[in-house]
């Protein structure tokens, strides 16, 4: 793959189309090691075609090639908080990284959140995924006033 520059005008960011889905599934599988075809079809169904202002599933493409995606939605009063944007998936193809595409994808979904009237964006990250933590930090994100908790419920 020709990496190019993530900011170059030949890469556009647009809502996902059905024909992009296989590449998104493959990109996610390459990064996480798990192929979740049903999950992505379900997300496409809910976020891709009839998301409106509340749900966003965007891809960064050069021609027919998907170089990255971002997915998120506006959540109202979740965990007692005022409506805010949640980003729950963001990946850039390894050959297209560090050229600004991740930043562009995030900025574009934030534009969508603004249109939906929210002024805060959140995400939840694995503590040991330093790459994605560093990325979101570089974009200006700070710790939110929440603490994720869990327990085993055999």
């Amino acid at each position, binding site marked *: 793959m020709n990496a190019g520059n993530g900011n170059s005008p030949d890469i556009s960011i647009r809502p996902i189309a059905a024909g992009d889905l296989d590449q998104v599934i493959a990109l996610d599988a390459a990064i996480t090691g798990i192929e979740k075809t049903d999950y992505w079809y379900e997300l496409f169904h809910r976020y891709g075609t009839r998301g409106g202002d509340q749900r966003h599933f965007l891809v960064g493409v050069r021609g027919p090639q998907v170089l990255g995606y971002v997915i998120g939605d506006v959540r109202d009063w979740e965990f007692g908080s005022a409506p805010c944007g949640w980003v729950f998936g963001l990946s850039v193809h390894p050959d297209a990284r560090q050229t600004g595409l991740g930043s562009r994808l995030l900025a574009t979904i934030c534009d969508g959140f603004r249109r939906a009237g929210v002024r805060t964006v959140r995400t939840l990250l694995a503590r040991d995924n330093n790459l994605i933590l*560093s990325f979101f930090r570089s974009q200006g994100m700070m710790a939110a006033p929440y603490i994720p908790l869990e327990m085993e419920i055999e």
Partner: protein
Amino acid sequence: MKLQTGTSLALYSILEAAGNPERQISAADIATKYDVSIHHLAKVLRELGRAGLVESTRGAGGGYRFVGNAKRLTLMDVIELFEDIGTRQPYGAAGAAVTDTARALDHVLSEIDEIAKATFRSITIATMLRLVERHGRGGNGPRHP
């Protein structure tokens, strides 16, 4: 979370030098700005020099220059040169008996340590400089891209 004085001086020095790449920073400037001991600071700067993060030049107009990679150097990288925040001594090892209570307390304290470490590991000097700028503009909340 409190860092040792030397560690804070190291972070101030790195941020001053990396934030002003076009000019040499003198130890006296940093000492005055942060109201700290110049002797302690000189020691810290020597350590940063040994680690290859700053370079010093002598003579008139001499001082320190940042020579690290601001986009990759993290707060953790700098902190680790001066103190070990990575490994908590279990209570048992400090001479006290290893009881269930001590183990449970250890568990809670290590939760806090892990969050602190992940935070320091994920913030680069470049990210920190942007944060400094935002505070300078009077804001400290998250920026919305």
